[in-house]
């Protein structure tokens, strides 16, 4: 009996260890890169997809911070084309000097992975376009990895962080050029002849922002190479680069407002709104003035004519 008791004493801590080793609730997500490896020669331009595996959970927000070997790779661009992220709180930025790439965006209503029967890949967050630099000596490895500050939040109404696993990539850069350098990005840009999706411009005024002044909101996507930038034009003014929400210069709302969405390949989609309020009819004042001057002249001539009589 004593023997059994001592054995039982040993069993309990082991069971506890076992339970602790298995995470109780595995609300996990995996951020990974595709391809995760490859061989390139100096001058090649290649694309790396940033993808997510939600492991059957629903997520709605992703912040990705990546570091890359900036002495071997040059980050040429970032393409949000066909990304599941449609709203961006941190637009993709590349810092070549520090070798950092970061972005944060979300999916209204959430993203829960593939449904049964789904025909294609639907887990793309964005594409990084790299160009390899000249390397001296032997072939060299370039790394691309997610930083610990990357995070994925669950679509649970509380913004709960998902348990995150990340998988980076390692690329081999050859020392010498064997053939003409490839440019995957150029091919992608040449294929894209479809403009960004149609969108609506809305004019709003709320005490919560811009001290209650009028502003416009707009948002669209481009399913091929992705939106590059927006330009706004009020009336006959110049096109100005801007983003939503955009504070209007003309608070009278008396001019037409145009927003141009431009994709990475240069295709444009222009939408128009307004003018909401009709401009003051200055021509009436001119007409009244002309009428007044005419009448005065008529009176003067009439008096002159009567006097001469």
């Amino acid at each position, binding site marked *: 009996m004593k023997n059994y008791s001592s054995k039982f004493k040993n069993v309990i801590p*082991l*069971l506890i*260890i*076992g*339970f602790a*080793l*298995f995470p*109780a*609730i595995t*609300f996990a997500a995996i951020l990974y890169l595709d391809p995760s490896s490859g061989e390139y020669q100096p001058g090649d331009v290649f694309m790396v997809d940033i993808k997510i595996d939600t492991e*059957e*959970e*629903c997520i*709605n927000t992703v*912040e990705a911070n990546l570091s890359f070997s900036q002495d071997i790779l040059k980050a040429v661009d970032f393409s949000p084309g*066909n990304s*599941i992220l*449609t*709203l961006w*709180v941190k637009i993709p930025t590349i810092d070549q000097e520090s070798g950092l790439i970061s972005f*944060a965006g*979300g*999916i*209204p*209503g*959430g*993203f*829960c*992975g593939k*449904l049964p*029967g*789904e*025909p*294609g890949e*639907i887990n*793309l967050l964005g594409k990084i376009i790299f160009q390899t630099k000249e390397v001296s000596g032997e072939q060299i490895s370039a790394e691309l990895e997610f930083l610990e500050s990357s*995070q994925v*939040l*669950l*679509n*649970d*109404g*509380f*913004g709960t962080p998902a348990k995150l696993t990340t998988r980076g990539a390692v690329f081999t850069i050859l020392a010498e050029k064997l053939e003409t350098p490839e440019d995957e990005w150029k091919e992608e840009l040449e294929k894209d002849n479809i403009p960004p*999706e149609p969108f*609506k411009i*809305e004019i*709003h005024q*709320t005490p*919560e*922002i*811009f001290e209650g002044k009028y*502003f416009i*909101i707009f*948002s669209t*996507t481009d*399913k*091929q190479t992705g939106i590059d930038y927006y330009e706004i034009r009020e009336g006959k003014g110049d096109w100005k680069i801007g983003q*939503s*929400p955009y504070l209007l210069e003309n608070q009278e709302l008396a001019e037409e407002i145009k927003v141009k969405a431009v994709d990475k390949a240069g295709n444009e989609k222009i939408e128009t709104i307004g003018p909401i309020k009709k401009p003051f009819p200055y021509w009436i004042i001119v007409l009244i003035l002309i009428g007044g001057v005419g009448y005065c002249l008529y009176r003067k001539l009439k008096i002159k004519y009567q006097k001469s009589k």
Partner: protein
Amino acid sequence: MMKNFKNYFLLILISIILEGLILTFYNVQAIAIEGTVNITATVEEPSPPPSGGGGWVPPPIATKVIIQGKAYPLISVTVLQDGKVATVTNADSQANFRVEITDITPGVWTFGVWAEDKKGVKSITFSFTTNIISGMTTTISGIFLPPTIEIDKTFLQRGEILNILGQTAPQSEVSIIVNSPEEIIKKTKAETDGTWFYGFDTTPLEEGSHTSRAKATSLEGLSSTFSQTLGFNVGKRMPEVIQKTDINGDEKVNLVDFSILLYNWGIPKNPAVDFNSDGKVDLRDFSIMLYYWTG
């Protein structure tokens, strides 16, 4: 020594398997997409050429999306396309709805479906992402919107009855889940108009914060995802954790509220934008807004 190590290893392995079985039994995967939704992509048959021959050119094959499923009887259903309202349709008396979106660019799109029940309570958005292929009709079927849910009190004493109610498809079976240290599951059946009600006896609950949510199974066997999670307190009052995400009070959570959130990013100028009241407007507030998004 070696034998002991083997035994220890076996014990740890048994405990891992045991815990896995417990988690499976209690169905802990709380947020995962479940249900009976299915995607099919088909090529529509081109119409036959008219008799008499001649230089007939077949019309281009349209790229189309069909979204169909169940909501609540005789209510309007809103369909979102990449977060923007694409169309609004009506559900019939059996809660069925169907929408067709034509003229869509091929590519990856996220669609959302939400509805407002007959009392004006909104469902959460049921969202799915699919790759639309050029020249094909993509049909997303088997959608069953989660039930709407309301509770009559957010604070009550232990032993009081908490009335939990909402709407779903007619005569669906509704499972109500109350989370306390132990998960309590109760079932009820919806009326012919889809309304459902359950009087929950709070006697087994401990004092403190609890949550309730519901999901439904229709007569045809479609299963919904979980409804919104509602919090309530038993015995002691606790501050409300999540504030309303409709900042400008227009009954919608959309680009306007998103613009206000961006304007307040970091240290909020307006405390109403700090939804989780942690003193800053950050990614978590953005995530909370996306959960309640209506377009």
